[in-house]
């Protein structure tokens, strides 16, 4: 291959920021990777026309001049797959940032290259097939314990189908080691290695898509109870700056019950990635008992890194997610922020002098968004197992106005919309997910799952939602006449709504106890709220006074139950229940007589 390189060299004729034009590029194909200029900057061919190619360059092009070479590689932009991905931080084109730092120091030099996976590192390989076995796309041929919590299953790559000729015995091998030789059906032989490649823009194949049944449990009550996302679902979290997009995504990355997390920092702050890097290794996954970093891959293309690499970073991330999905895992992808990705598209499109559609975004924005969110799903893998990729995309609408193109188009391709509310955020009511403007179409898919845990879940949820709706209506009147002018029954509704907001919906990510709320505790809290509602309504109906309810013994502890009662502490739960119940009994007796 390297012998005929001479023929595959073009020449730069224009440099316009990250967009470079080159001639003598007859051999170049669309989406082919090229190395640009003397610094050999990585680029991708995005347009070819009569021997001239337009290239988007993933690094700063400062100093590049017309006349320099462009070397074709005849490969699409691909990621490297294999053990060693977990716990690593990559940039948008999968350069390992820890090793780049070791080479070039604190600042990222241009043209720096490093293997995404360490070729020298050995992994303990356990074969799972023997000579004579047939292998085809997705057939496992071995496995490696990648981290203590994740078993990395080595699957036959999608273009291989044949018979195992030989396979190495259990032992320690490097990623490029030929572990097995396959005699291909189409003729010839092909080695199988731990490391593989996959082009980032191409979804990995699956047998079929499955319908969604299970919730992706997040530990955030407003999500799990009100606007749940299913495993394999897609959610958008739009909000103006400072309303809590990143915090919510970080909370999900920490506590949701996926096996693997791919966290993509796309055009956002460097410090936020640093925060994850520093914090996750110290946090313990409540399910595996292991460090959270062992299940996490970070992709960091921060706002000050080259804009073209920002465009590709979300594809890099989702391809890694699909790879683990194919092993049978539930993977959750956080993309913060898809708006910065869309802006990268817009910037590149502008430099290409394409016709703009809405607000300067290219006309193909919705198609690209659809293509990204379509890669979420629950599937039957090529091997015949179940796996899922859930996608949670942050959206950063200019001025916090949801009518802008990215929010609008995104909402067509997701089924779960967590609308962040500026007023809630200003009042430091977090998560600032609006119960008025959010929705989840997954609710119907996952209700049965909850019913298996808690028969009353759906009805309790309904009661609580209705109180909040009633409150919204009552607030309109209260704004005009003052709440004290309302009848006792309506004032009780306002009180209960207040309790729901403060004691249930609001959940501080920094509270030691409340940062994660188990499904069991959620169910219990909902049941408590509903019981309290029904009994106090009854008391008021019988002529009781709101003032008595406000003075109920234990009410203050009820209001603090989220942070005072740890997950799973059934004794404390029962004690509080008893305390409240006694108080309500006493009130009831007062009015029965």
């Amino acid at each position, binding site marked *: 291959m390297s012998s005929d390189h001479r023929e595959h060299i073009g020449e730069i004729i224009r440099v316009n920021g990250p967009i470079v034009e080159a001639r003598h590029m007859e051999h170049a194909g669309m989406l082919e990777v090229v190395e640009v200029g003397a610094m050999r900057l990585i680029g991708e061919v995005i347009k070819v026309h009569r021997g001239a190619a337009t290239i988007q360059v993933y690094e700063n092009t*400062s100093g590049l*001049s*017309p*006349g320099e070479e462009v070397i074709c590689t005849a490969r699409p932009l691909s990621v490297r797959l294999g053990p060693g991905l977990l716990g690593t931080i990559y940039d948008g084109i999968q350069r390992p940032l820890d090793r780049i730092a070791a080479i070039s120091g604190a600042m990222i030099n241009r043209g720096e290259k490093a293997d995404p996976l360490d070729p020298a590192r050995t992994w303990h390989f356990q074969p799972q097939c023997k000579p004579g076995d047939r292998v085809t796309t997705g057939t496992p041929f071995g496995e490696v314990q990648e981290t203590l919590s994740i078993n990395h299953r080595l699957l036959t790559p999608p273009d291989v189908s044949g018979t195992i000729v030989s396979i190495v015995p259990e032992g320690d091998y490097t990623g490029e080691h030929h572990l097995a030789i396959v005699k291909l059906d189409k003729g010839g032989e092909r080695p199988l290695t731990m490391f593989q490649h996959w082009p980032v823009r191409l979804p990995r194949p699956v047998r079929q898509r499955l319908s969604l049944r299970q919730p992706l449990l997040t530990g955030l009550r407003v999500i799990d109870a009100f606007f749940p996302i299913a495993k394999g679902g897609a959610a958008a979290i739009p909000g103006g*700056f*400072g309303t809590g997009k990143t915090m919510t995504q970080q909370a999900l990355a920490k506590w949701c019950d996926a096996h693997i997390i791919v966290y993509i920092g796309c055009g956002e702050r460097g410090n936020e990635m640093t925060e994850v890097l520093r914090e996750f290794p110290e946090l313990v996954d409540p399910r595996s008992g292991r460090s959270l970093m062992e299940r996490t891959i970070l992709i960091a293309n921060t706002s000050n890194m080259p*804009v073209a690499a920002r465009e590709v970073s979300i594809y890099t991330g989702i391809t890694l997610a699909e790879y683990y999905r194919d092993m049978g895992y539930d993977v959750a992808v956080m993309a913060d922020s898809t708006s910065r990705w869309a802006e990268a598209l817009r910037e590149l499109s*502008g430099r290409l002098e394409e016709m703009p559609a809405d607000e300067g975004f290219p006309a193909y924005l919705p198609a690209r968004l659809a293509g990204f969110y379509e890669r979420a799903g629950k599937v039957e893998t090529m091997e015949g197992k179940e796996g899922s990729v859930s996608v949670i995309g942050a959206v950063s609408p*200019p*001025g916090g106005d949801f009518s802008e193109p990215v929010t609008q188009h995104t909402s067509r391709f997701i089924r779960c919309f967590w609308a962040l509310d500026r007023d809630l955020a200003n009042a430091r009511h977090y998560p600032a997910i609006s119960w008025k403007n959010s929705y989840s179409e997954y609710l119907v898919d996952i209700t049965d799952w909850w019913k298996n845990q808690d028969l009353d879940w759906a009805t309790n949820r309904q009661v609580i939602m209705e109180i909040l709706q009633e409150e919204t209506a009552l607030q309109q009147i209260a704004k005009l006449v003052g709440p004290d002018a309302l009848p006792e029954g309506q004032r009780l509704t306002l009180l209960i709504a207040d309790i729901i907001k403060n004691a249930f919906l609001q959940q501080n990510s920094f509270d030691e106890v409340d940062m994660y709320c188990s499904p069991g505790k959620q169910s219990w809290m909902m049941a408590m709220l509903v019981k309290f509602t029904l009994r106090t309504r009854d008391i008021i109906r019988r002529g009781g006074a709101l003032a008595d309810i406000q003075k109920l013994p234990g009410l203050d502890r009820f209001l603090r139950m989220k942070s005072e009662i740890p997950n799973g502490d059934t004794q404390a739960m029962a004690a509080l229940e008893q305390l409240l119940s006694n108080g309500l009994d006493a009130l009831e007796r007062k009015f029965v007589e």
Partner: protein
Amino acid sequence: MKMPGLEYSGVKNIDGPLVFVDNIRNVAYDELVVITAPNGEERMGQVLDVTATSAVVQVFGGTDALSPAGTRARFLGESLRIPVSREMLGRVFDGLGRPKDGLPMPLNADYLDVNGLPVNPYAREYPRDFIQTGISAIDLMNTLVRGQKLPIFSGNGLPHNRIAAQIARQARLLNEEVDFAIVFAAMGVKHDVAHFFIDSFQSSGVLNNVAMFLSLADDPSVERLITPRSALTLAEYLAFTEGMHVLVLITDMSNYCEALREISTARGEIPSRKGYPGYLYSDLASIYERAGRLRDGSGSITQMPILTMPSDDISHPIPDLTGYITEGQIVLERDMFQRGIYPPVAGLPSLSRLMKDGIGKDRTRADHPRVASQLFAAYSKVKDIRSLASVIGEEELSPVDKLYIQFGHEFENRVIGQGEFENRTIEQTLELGWDVLKILPRAELLRVSEEELQQYYDQAPQVETLR
């Protein structure tokens, strides 16, 4: 191969701040250009777009008095670099790093590219060291930490300069004396603003620790595009090579953005919102992200950009995109200013994103996070009750709501409000916070813990309340 210094006589055409040069060879993207006007005057420029035979050059000195035939363009074969050295402290430079104080160029300086390089997120250290500014609105409610980028969102006529000067004067780390410097960048502001800062630095005796980069209102507007980059290049050198703790004050980012819009329009680019280019976000990020700390334990860059919101509109692209990049924002409110409250820091829209890790036990005080959260919650209720009161009248409010109104008044005047030369310790500030919380009934205070209520609410005597 390259012939640095190759000069071309005559340019093809001139449009706004841009010069189009033809028949060139071997010019690189981003390369520095010296444009010589017909009268012999030299101006710096930079290549924005280049083909094999032509280049678009943006001229920092502006294009006044240039004519196509009489103008010469010399391509320098390198990008814009400025000198950096410790000796630059105590000096004044223009936006491109050339001395403006009549003294010679610093000796022994390194020359660094003004665009810098992106910091590897892996190499960053997460900032969490509390900086006490002595201003309660910041220390208590929107805490600043070392290495943070925290802008002031202001409006015309609001006292942002006085606040920035007060911060520069009072800011210190708890229990620590450090090797510090201030780098000050001014873009498009008037001479008196620059003098206000110089006087302020002088009277607090820090002038020798300050380097100034001034591109004032009467300097060519394109120079503003380089000014903050020059300042940050020096700041990076001082912080990460010399190990100093650097506070960077930049004013006014709105003028910077206008210069960027001017260039973009001249290039005929498709505008995004309000005529600003679609890459305004990325461009601003290439400035604001040049803040923080590194793992290697060197110094830090704390950035405090000032911007004036056109018509006080926080959703205008300049504050909006800034808020999406910076680690919070201190928002000034005209209404509070008119009521005579200094500093008029808006209670609800202000935010410090790094506060969460910089405060609490062993940092400020254990109760700080919850006191702040409680004050925010209560103050947001005040806003609702005030609007209710404006409909039904204050007399009609419930007794508890009346207490909230009183709380709001005291909070704004006694906690937020303070003197321009008043320097409060964090303990004094927290005590003031509890003092005003005591106006409210105990049952209203759900965000603080029972133990904290016992320690701070129950123990101390009730404050004297307003009539």
